[in-house]
């Protein structure tokens, strides 16, 4: 298996990256079962103030990647390999204690479903102050004041009263705001948002994204945005990594990616987004098959079974090597032997078209 050494990107903006993920692998292995490679050699880095998107369909390994970075995967039956460095410090193999102290203080995470991510039996206020007690030496009164300030900052009206309420009394958007307040309570340097808008209405989605942009991106916090929503990518991300079957198959800046998707999968994703500026009656182009139709990366390109450009040498036995992730022009990487070629009219949406 050839691994192509690539220069780390992202640190060209503000120097040293906050997060460096290097050849991360996550393998789920149960006794007597075929091990599953959920994440299979993923590398990327995030600089302060940068927003990096991890994009892909359900089951492509993006959430597992985020849990591996946070050290939240269960111990049993899971093997994590490679390297995850936060500010130069290796996180894989760090003690539980170290990791626990870092979580919430240095790096935080916002999850997909704001209702189930909040404890239904505990008032919002307690859940916010709890984080403050854990990581910042604070008296009870200071913590309550700080919690009020935090809720106010994320745009929750009447925060002092909301603190006493229970999660089921808040609207979906409010809950996600509260969770963001909790994540930002200790001003972390890295925030991982795992599909933070998926469970929300469209108007609320826009508000939450705007909030993230305001509070995270503009304050210099590094943001890893995990999503399958290309609208979110278009609106927020600087750099995008498209994942498929546990590997990154294309990396590019947002504008490049939307203007000239190279991987047929990326092209397919963009083509499946409805466009306002397209002619009416033109059918959408879904990617055929489903994410289950994969072949192992060791035997060829995992996307080949669903790919329109697939040819014989997409298989390892024909080409003699697995498909490598290679440099593809400035700031771009691509894992494909038969990419979409340009100039030609883009198969799908452009950045402006897919943006909300």
């Amino acid at each position, binding site marked *: 298996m050839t691994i192509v050494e690539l220069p780390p990107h992202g640190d060209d903006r503000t120097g040293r990256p906050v997060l460096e993920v290097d050849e991360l692998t996550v393998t789920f292995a149960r006794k007597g079962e075929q091990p599953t490679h959920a994440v299979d050699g993923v590398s990327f880095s995030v600089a302060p103030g940068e927003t990096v998107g991890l994009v892909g369909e359900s089951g492509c390994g993006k959430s597992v990647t985020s849990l591996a970075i*946070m050290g*939240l995967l269960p111990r049993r039956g899971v093997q994590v390999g490679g390297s995850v460095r936060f500010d130069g410090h290796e996180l894989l193999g760090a003690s539980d204690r170290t990791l*626990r*102290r*870092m*979580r*919430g*203080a240095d790096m*935080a*995470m916002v*999850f997909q*479903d704001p209702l*189930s*991510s*909040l*404890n*239904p*039996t*505990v*008032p919002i206020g*307690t859940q916010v102050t*709890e*984080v403050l007690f*854990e*990581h910042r030496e604070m008296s009870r009164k200071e913590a309550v004041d700080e919690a009020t300030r935090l809720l106010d900052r994320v745009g929750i*009206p*009447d925060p002092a*009263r*909301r603190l*006493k*309420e*229970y999660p*089921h*009394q808040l609207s979906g958007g409010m809950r996600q705001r509260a*969770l963001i307040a*909790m*994540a930002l*309570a200790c001003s972390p340097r890295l925030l991982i948002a795992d599909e933070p808008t998926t469970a929300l209405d469209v108007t609320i989605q826009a508000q939450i994204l705007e909030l993230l942009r305001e509070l995270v991106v503009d304050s210099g916090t590094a943001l890893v945005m995990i999503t399958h929503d290309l609208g979110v990518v278009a609106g927020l991300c600087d750099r995008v990594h498209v994942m498929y079957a546990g590997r990154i198959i294309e990396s590019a800046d947002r504008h490049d990616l939307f203007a000239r998707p190279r991987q047929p999968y990326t092209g397919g994703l963009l083509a499946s987004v409805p466009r306002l500026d397209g002619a009416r009656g033109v059918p959408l182009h879904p990617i055929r098959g489903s994410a289950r139709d994969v072949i192992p990366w060791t035997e060829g390109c995992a996307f080949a079974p669903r790919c329109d450009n697939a040819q014989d040498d997409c298989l390892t036995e024909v080409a003699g090597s697995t498909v490598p992730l290679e440099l593809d022009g400035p700031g771009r990487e691509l894992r494909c032997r038969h990419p979409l070629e340009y100039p030609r009219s883009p198969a799908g949406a452009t950045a402006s078209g897919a943006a909300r």
Partner: protein
Amino acid sequence: MTAMGDVKRRRIDELAARAGQVPEGEGGVSLTKSAFRRLRRNPVAITGAVIVVLFLLVAAFAPLLAPKDPLTQYLLSEIRPGTIPGSREGFPLGVDNLGRDLLSRLIVGSRQSLLIGVVSTLLGVVVGMALGVLAGAFGGWVDTVVMRFVDILLSIPGLLMAISISVLLGQNQYALMIAIAVTQVPVFARLLRGSMLAQRDSDYALAARALGIRRSRIVFGHVLPNSLSPVIVQATLSLATAIIEAAALSFLGLGDPDLARPEWGAMLSNAQAFLSIRPELAVYPALCIIVVALGFTLLGESLREALDPKFRR
């Protein structure tokens, strides 16, 4: 025109600000509170609660309520082999084979029966929960050891174990309580462990871990409170079983040897010799046991419904 627009704008903002506010006194309705609200509207719950409260009141004020002394023997002249006097003026339910007023004995006996039920259930809940928390919070080998121990307890038939324990500990009311409590322990341990395991993998527990909350705080502040509702329900239902079991042990002659304390089970046991002459002697204590058990069961079942998230709102 702009001035006009400004006024409108301000009015809209005012209204919006008001709409965003929560009305006074509405803030912070906890799940417990809303469960109680639902409970109050449920006629089954009310029935159960009325029965339970009634019996608790009777037990609490038993000496005041009992019309006669439960130990004094009356009408001895009328008690002969083959005849026990039935109800009459002053003895609404009649007397037992020794001439003691049945009603007074039932009233005073409620104390002992309820006490044994409540204390043994409490004991069972506390010990069972301690084991359940241990297993549910730590997992791994702690879980294995605790759960195998519980399995062993569970594999012995409850009544058999209660009998063995009360024989081992000697005949007194504390032995009876401990014996019944031990049979309750495995149920609570398993229940709490199972519900904690389910909650431990919940999203909010993961979210709390992602915020670096320490494990003890996650277990006691997040997982445990969310795992309690099945235990509370089971405790209510177990109260009924405990009272029946106490009666059963007394019936078998393993109850309280202190004859100065009347108890329903003992009364029932005592009555079996006179079943053909005066079945009322057995019927009334049995009825008391059934009604109290029913009351606790109704209350427990409706509590389960009220706490069930599926019925929320």
